[in-house]
C-alpha cells in the first residue's frame, strides 16, 4: 500500500493540493481532505472507461489498434480545409501546448471550454483590465467577500473553507471578522452561510451594478427599486462595499452567461475599479474546470490570445463570435474536428451540435460521452492528474503540478503522448 500526499485535485478551479490518496494494487482505496465531488472522481475514475481505440466503419464503431486510430485522426485533420481542435480544459498544460502546435500545423482553429463559460470574462478584461489577486490574499486580508452569480458551495465545495469566508488568515482569524454577501437569482445553498443575501431579478445584473456605481458616487436614484431590489437595500450594500478594508468580488456563470455577457463583466470590473477609491478591492472569476485557466494561459503565451484562435491564415487571428468553435460550426465552416477531454454535443446549442454530427471528427477522452458515441474516431486516454502528470493553473493563475498516483491501464496513453503521436503523423503526412 502506498500513500501519496499533497496530490492536486483535478476537478474544479480550486485545485486543492492537499489530497491524500491511498493506493493498493494499482487502485485508489481511499482519499483524505477531498470534497464530495473530488472523492467521487478519485474513487470512481476507473469505471465507465473507454478501453480501446475505435474507428467508425460502415456506421459502426469498431475496435482498432492505436496506430490505425492515430493515423485516421491525422488523416481527418490533414484532409480538412478548416479543422478545429477543441477542449483540453481537463488536460495538462503540456498537452495543451501540443494542441496549439497541432492546430497551427493543420491550419485550424484552437478553442476551449472558455467559449461556454468565462469567454465574456476575457472580453471584459480586454476592455477594462482586471484588478485581481491570489486566493491567499483573500484568505489573509478579505473582510468583505461577495459572490455574484456563483453557487460556490455546490460548484467549488472547499472554496469557502480553504480560501475565503471560513478560512483562517494572518489578519483575519475569525468568521466574525468577515462579511459574506451573495447575489443570485435564487436562494442557493451558498446563500445559507451568507451575512447578506440579495435576490436579483433574472438578467438584471448590469442594472444593479450600474445602480451601485451611481450610489457610490453619491448620485441619487429616482426609481424605487432596481433589478427587483429596493433602493434602500442597494444603498446599504454600497455602504458595506465602501467601508470594507479589503473586498473581493467572485463571479460565476450567472454573470458571464446571462443577458449582457461581457457587458456585465465590464460593469463588474468598473465597479471594482471605482471601489478602489475607498477600499482595496479585487475581482476574480470562479473558473470551473480545473485547468481551463491553464488553457487560457498556454494559448495566450503561444499565440497571444486566450481562446478561439484561428491559425488557418498562418498567423494567429482572434475574433470571438467569428473564430469561436461554436460559431464556425453554426455557420457550417468547420469541416473536421478533434475534441479532447470535452463533451460539446451534450452542451452546445442544437443546431451547432447537428452541424458537428455532419463533419468527420475524432475524440480523445478517458470516458465515453455523448460526443464519443457519434465520433468517427475515438482514442481512450489516461486520466490526467491521476494516471498522468503535468501542470495546471488554479483559478487565480497559480501553477501547480498534477501528480501521477498510479499507472493507466495497459495500452492507454496520456493526452500529451497521444497528441505528440498525432502531431508526428500529421507532419509525416504533410511531408
Amino acid at each position, binding site marked *: 500500500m502506498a500513500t501519496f*500526499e*499533497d496530490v492536486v485535485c483535478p476537478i474544479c478551479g480550486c485545485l486543492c*493540493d*492537499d489530497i491524500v490518496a491511498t493506493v493498493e494494487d494499482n487502485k485508489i482505496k481511499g482519499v483524505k481532505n477531498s470534497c464530495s465531488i473530488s472523492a467521487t472522481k478519485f474513487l470512481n475514475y476507473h469505471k465507465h472507461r473507454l478501453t480501446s481505440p475505435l474507428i467508425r466503419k460502415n456506421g459502426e464503431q469498431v475496435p482498432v489498434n492505436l496506430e490505425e486510430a492515430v493515423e485516421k485522426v491525422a488523416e481527418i485533420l490533414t484532409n480538412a480545409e478548416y479543422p478545429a481542435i477543441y477542449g483540453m480544459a481537463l488536460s495538462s*498544460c503540456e498537452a495543451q*501546448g501540443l494542441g496549439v*502546435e497541432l492546430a*497551427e500545423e493543420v491550419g485550424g482553429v484552437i478553442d476551449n471550454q472558455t467559449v461556454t463559460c468565462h469567454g465574456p470574462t*476575457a472580453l471584459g*478584461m*480586454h*476592455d*477594462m*483590465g*482586471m*484588478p*485581481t*489577486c*491570489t*486566493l*491567499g*490574499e483573500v*484568505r*489573509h*486580508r478579505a473582510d468583505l467577500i461577495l459572490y455574484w452569480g456563483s453557487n460556490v458551495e455546490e460548484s467549488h465545495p472547499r472554496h469557502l473553507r*480553504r*480560501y475565503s469566508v471560513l478560512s*483562517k488568515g*494572518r*489578519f483575519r482569524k475569525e468568521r466574525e471578522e468577515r462579511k459574506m454577501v451573495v447575489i443570485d437569482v435564487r436562494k442557493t445553498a451558498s446563500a445559507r452561510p451568507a451575512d447578506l443575501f440579495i435576490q436579483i431579478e433574472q438578467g438584471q445584473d448590469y442594472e444593479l451594478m450600474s445602480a451601485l456605481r451611481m450610489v457610490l458616487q453619491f448620485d441619487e436614484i429616482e426609481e424605487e427599486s432596481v433589478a427587483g431590489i429596493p433602493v434602500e437595500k442597494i444603498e446599504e450594500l454600497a455602504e458595506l462595499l465602501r467601508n470594507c*478594508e*479589503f473586498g473581493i468580488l467572485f463571479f460565476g456563470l450567472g454573470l458571464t452567461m446571462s443577458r449582457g455577457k461581457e457587458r456585465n463583466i465590464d460593469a463588474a470590473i468598473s465597479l471594482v*475599479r471605482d471601489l*478602489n477609491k475607498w*477600499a*482595496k*478591492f*479585487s475581482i476574480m472569476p470562479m473558473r470551473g474546470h480545473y485547468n481551463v485557466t491553464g488553457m*487560457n*494561459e*498556454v494559448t*495566450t*503565451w*503561444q*499565440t*497571444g*490570445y*486566450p481562446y478561439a484562435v484561428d*491559425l488557418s491564415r*498562418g*498567423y*494567429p487571428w*482572434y475574433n470571438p463570435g467569428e473564430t469561436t468553435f461554436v460559431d464556425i460550426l453554426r455557420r457550417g465552416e468547420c469541416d473536421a474536428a478533434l475534441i479532447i477531454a470535452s463533451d460539446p454535443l451534450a452542451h452546445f446549442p442544437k443546431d451547432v451540435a447537428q452541424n458537428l454530427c455532419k463533419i468527420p471528427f475524432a475524440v480523445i477522452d478517458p470516458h465515453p460521452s455523448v460526443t464519443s458515441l457519434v465520433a468517427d474516431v475515438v482514442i481512450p486516454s489516461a486520466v490526467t492528474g491521476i494516471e498522468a502528470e503535468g*501542470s495546471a*493553473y488554479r483559478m487565480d*493563475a*497559480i*501553477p*501547480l*503540478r498534477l501528480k501521477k498516483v498510479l499507472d493507466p491501464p495497459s495500452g492507454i496513453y496520456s493526452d500529451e503522448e497521444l497528441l505528440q503521436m498525432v502531431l508526428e503523423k500529421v507532419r509525416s503526412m504533410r511531408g
Partner: protein
Amino acid sequence: MELLIKNGVVYDPTNKIDGEVMDIAIKGNKIVDKVDEFKAYVIDASNKLVMAGGVDLHSHIAGPKKNTGRMLRPEDHYKDFELKTKVKRSGGGYSTPSSFIIGYRYAEMGYTTVIEPANSPIKMLHCHHEFRDIPLLDKACFVLFGNNWFVWEYLMDNKIDECAAYVAWVLNATKGYAIKIVDPGCVEAWKWGDVEFLDILWGRPETIDEPVPRFGITSREIIRGLCKVNKRLNLPHPIHVHANGLGTPGNYETTIDTMDCVKDLAEEDRPIMHMTHVQFNGYGGSDWVNLRSGAYEIMKYVNVNKHVAIDLGQVIFTDTTTMTGDGPFEYRLHRLTKNKWTNADVEVESGAGIVPMHYKRSSSVHAIMWTIGLELALFAKDPWRVFMTTDHPNGGPFINYPKVISWLMSKEARQRILNKIPKRARTKSNLESIDREYSFYEIATSTRAATAKILGLKDKGHLGVGADADVSIYDIDPKEIDPSKDYKKIRKAFSNAIFTIKEGEIVVKDGEVVKSIDGRVYWVKPDLPSDLMDAMESELSEKFEDYYTITMENFQIPERFVARSTPIPAYYG
C-alpha cells in the same frame, strides 16, 4: 560542427580587443583557439562587425505578468504578427509578443541571452513553462524577495543566516537566479490599498526609512538585509533593485539614498547592487509641471561609487505596455492616464500591475523621460556599470534597441529628436549639451560584456577561448562607417544581424531565423551547511501552510520541469 569566422572586425571588451581584424574559431558549442580551415564551415566576415551574442539583463519576456499583459492587449497582437515558416512558429504582439517570436526577434538582433527580471516564487513554474517556448535564447529568472513575509520576519529578528538559508531554499526550489527587490515595503502597503502611506512614500527623499504599517520594517532594512544575504550566499548577480518612488517627480533623491544605503557593505570594487531602469527613478522637480531630469545627480553618484551598477530603462516614443511588480505605481499610472488596468497581488510575497502606455514626442513629460535615459548613459564614466535596456516593454519594446544604440552613437540622431520635442523638455535636461558619442567598443561593453559580467555568466559576453559559441555578425564595416553621420545604417545593421551563432550553430542568416534550437535555463543552486538548512526548513514547514494556500511540497519545482536546466553552484560563506 566546426566553424571559422574569418577576418571579422572584432569588438570583445572582456579580452580588450578593440576592432582588431581576426578569426574566431568554433568547435562544438565553444570558442576554441583554432580549427582546421579546410574542414570547418567558413564565414567570410571581412569588413563586418563581430561581437559576442548580446546579453540583456532586464527584459520582461516570460511569466504571469507578461502573459496577463498579452491577455490584456489583443489590440497589440492584431497590428504585429508573424507567419509560421518551416522553422518558425507563428505569433504576434508588438509590446507583448508571444513566446516563440520573442526568441526569434532577439536572435535576429544578435542577442543570445535574456534575463526575465521579476517573478513571484509561487508562480515560478509559469515562468519555466514559458521559457520552454522561447527558442534561441539562454534564460534565467530573478525572484522577488523584497516584500516577502518570511524575509521580513527574519530581518526584523536580525537573523541574516536563517534568512540566507530561506532565500537559498527558495532559489533552489523555484529554480531562480538572483534576488530581485521591487518597491520594498510599498507593495505590502498597497495590498491594503494604503493610499495614505503610499502618498507619503512617493517622492520624498527620506522615504526608505518609513516603517511599513503592521510590520514596522523599513525599505532600508529590507535592502540592506537582502544585500547581506546576497553576499553570504555568494550569488553570481548582486541584488537587483527597483527602488521606491518609481515614476514620481523628485524621486532621484530616493534613488541615491537607496544606492547609498548599502555603500558600507561594499568590498573591493565589485558592484553589490544593481539599480534597475534608473530612468524611471531619475526625476527631479516636485510635480509633473516642474519635472526635470535628475540624471546628472544620479550619475555623479554612480561614477564615483563602484558598489553600484545601473541600467537605463530608456523610453521610446511608441505605444507600449507597462508591467511591473510595483502594483502601487501601476495603480497611480491608471489613475493618471485612465487607461485599462490590471493588478495582481500575490500572497505572502509580491504583486504586479499592468497599464498600457503611449509615449508621445509631443508630451513634455514623456520627452523629458526620453532625455533622462540617454543622459544616464552619456554621463557614465564607466560603461562596465551602465547597461543599455528599455526595461522591455516598460520603456518600449526590445526591438527598438537599435534605435537606442544609434542615439548613443550619434549626436546628430539625438538632435533630430530633440528638434521635435517640446521646448520645455529641452530646457529641463542636459542632453542637448552633451557631445559624447559611444564607440563600438563601448556599445559592445554595454550590451554584452558588462551585462554578462555582472550576471556572473563567465562564458557569455566575450569571444575568448572557452567562451560559449554565441556570436553575432553585423553588416557594418567599423573602419569605414561614421556612426555619428550614418546612424540610419547603424540602426539597420543592428536590427538584423547577418549571422547569429548560438552554441556553434548558425541560427540567423541575413536577418532571418534559419534554425530554431532550445536555449538553456540557468538557475542558482546554493550550497549551505546542512544543519543551517535543516533548522530553517523545519521552522519553515511549521509556518508554510499558515502563510500559503499551497503546500510546501507543491511549492518546489522538480528539475525535469525546467527546459535544459543548467544549475550554477553558489558557495556559502
